[in-house]
């Protein structure tokens, strides 16, 4: 029983100002969320700086193999690919903890640290892009379905139900297999098979029901709420109700969803890339580097460990930020982002 009794109902009265500004202020005051945001900014900056790192620090081409390269460690020249202790094949160099091959090399002699930064770019780009697509589509579908009602709503709601019942990974896999092997040709619109847009679109689309269903529910309950009914009684045009009452509320919900969906999308991207139906070689993402590291797991575990840790840190921070955003924008939120793995 916190301050829920009538006697205390006015205790938490907010100072008068726009709800979004108040929410932003609340978010800025949330230390955990701000710390998480700071870490995310650092991750993004590091990934943006990938070419600089590759050129000036690691002196390497992270996309070309370097099977017979040599590097100098402590005055001695060491080959990047060393004969394996078992005598079979070659083992890449392990972490040197120096500028070159900081985290070691993968089985093509490429600098893992440099690839991590390039991979992070793709992972972040795909997570961000798919989140934008997902929120835009879900917002559109949810508002159109909820606000039009009637047959439009029935059809859209049914479609969402069907997609909802579809195992997300299976849907993503099915789409990826088809698109990755041949690309997409739809009239004037062509997508190359190795385009980054393919995973972006696929991940964006498969999670649409997760967001669209709650949005549709929210729009329906808003449309039935007293203040909207009152507006309609006063003869306010539907368009105006949509713009003034519905859109701002839905936008708040979408903002709350954004960081949480981004976390989910980042994990999905990693999974698809790990199944080699996400980012296509020679491009990298954190998921593909884990796949590169799979064969080296027992000899050079760092190749697989590092990108996993990077994903984990980024996703944890996104979730922290997401919790902060939810508390700030939607304190009585019942929103839950379903994890599905």
């Amino acid at each position, binding site marked *: *029983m*916190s*301050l829920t*009794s*009538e*006697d*205390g*109902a*006015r*205790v*938490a*009265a907010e100072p008068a100002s726009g709800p979004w500004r108040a929410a932003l202020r609340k978010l800025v005051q949330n230390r955990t969320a701000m710390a998480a945001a700071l870490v995310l900014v650092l991750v993004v900056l590091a990934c943006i700086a990938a070419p600089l790192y590759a050129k000036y620090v690691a002196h390497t081409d992270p996309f070309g193999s370097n099977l017979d390269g040599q590097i100098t460690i402590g005055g001695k020249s060491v080959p990047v690919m060393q004969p394996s202790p078992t005598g079979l094949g070659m083992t890449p160099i392990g972490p040197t903890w120096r500028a070159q091959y900081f985290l070691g090399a993968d089985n093509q002699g490429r600098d893992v640290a440099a690839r991590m930064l390039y991979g992070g770019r793709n992972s972040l780009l795909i997570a961000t892009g798919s989140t934008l697509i997902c929120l835009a589509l879900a917002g559109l579908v949810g508002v159109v379905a909820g606000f039009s009602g009637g047959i439009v709503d029935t059809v859209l709601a049914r479609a969402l139900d069907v997609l909802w019942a579809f195992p997300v990974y299976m849907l993503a896999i099915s789409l990826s297999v088809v698109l990755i092997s041949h690309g997409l040709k739809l009239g004037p619109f062509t997508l190359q098979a190795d385009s980054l847009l393919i995973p972006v679109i696929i991940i964006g689309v498969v999670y649409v029901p997760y967001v669209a269903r709650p949005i549709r529910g929210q729009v329906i309950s808003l449309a039935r709420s007293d203040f909207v009914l009152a507006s309609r009684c006063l003869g306010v045009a539907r368009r105006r109700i949509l713009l003034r009452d519905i859109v701002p509320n839905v936008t708040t919900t979408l903002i709350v969803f954004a960081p949480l969906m981004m976390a989910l999308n980042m994990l999905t991207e990693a999974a698809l890339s790990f199944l080699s139906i996400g980012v296509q070689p020679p491009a990298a993402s954190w998921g593909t580097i884990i796949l590169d590291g799979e064969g080296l797991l027992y000899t050079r575990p760092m190749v697989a460990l590092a990108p996993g840790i990077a994903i984990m840190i980024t996703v944890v921070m996104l979730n922290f930020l997401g919790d902060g955003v939810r508390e700030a924008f939607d304190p009585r939120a019942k929103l839950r982002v379903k994890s599905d793995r």
Partner: protein
Amino acid sequence: MNGETLLEVDDLRVSFRTGQGVLPIVEGVSFVVKAGEILSVVGESGSGKSLTALAIMRLITDPNAVITGSVRFRGQDLLGLPEPAMRSLRGGAIAMIFQDPMTALTPAYTVGAQIVEQIMAHRNAGRMAARTRAIDLLGAMGIASPRDIAGRYPHQLSGGMRQRVMIAMALSCDPALLIADEPTTALDVTVQAQILELILRLRGEFGSSVLLITHDMGVVAKVADRVVVMYAGAIAEAGATRALFARPAHPYTIGLLGAIPRLRGPRLVRLPAIPGAPPAPHDRPSGCGFAPRCAAATGICAAHPPLITHDGHAVACFHARAA
């Protein structure tokens, strides 16, 4: 009604630590409940009456709440009591019913099971015996087929029925004191009357004292022996119901009762309705809480008026109308 003192509340204060400092909600409330009587605490929303009731039961779980003063039940200070001892009083010697019977029962269990649970928490009774007692109690509440009702879930019952269940549950361990927080507010008018009759009748049958929290002067007039009128966290006026209704002395009470000033004595402004609204806790005036809405207010009202008792009738007003 000159029984022994059962509950003695003395200078009870409840405040909450907030971002803007400590916010007092209940500011020094004192009253007694005697054995067998019905005392009504009446006030508007925000007057602190419900928090007073919750503080007596020690049901304020907000970690930011600060509660001071003393609450003595049969001479024992409840505020200093260890939690296990308090727990055995709750639902045992002191029972409480709440405003909204719609949400006050756990939806997942039958109402019978919820009564049985309370009996078994306090009495050394077997499940069958407890169930029999639960059904007897429901019968005593005027429920026609108690056995059938005991097997129903809360959502299958009407509001009045649920409040009867709540009362049966509260009375299941023969409490000496029943605290009823707005027990009729959420109910239809006709059902309200039935529940009030029930409370009156049960006072006789079970011998419990009742502390009745309400905002409804009509309810007070119907059942209370004595009344405490609260405004802005403090007591405005207290006294025997009949005397208070006949001769209200505090301008707020007068306003509440819509009393017309008498012809004799100083001429008061007529108050068909009290203008304004009660202050929110964070902008209560420093002196008399009612002063900003009071037609009789003068400069002196910037100070806190003391609660002066004369002949069993207490008033906290510098301009109290002479009795």
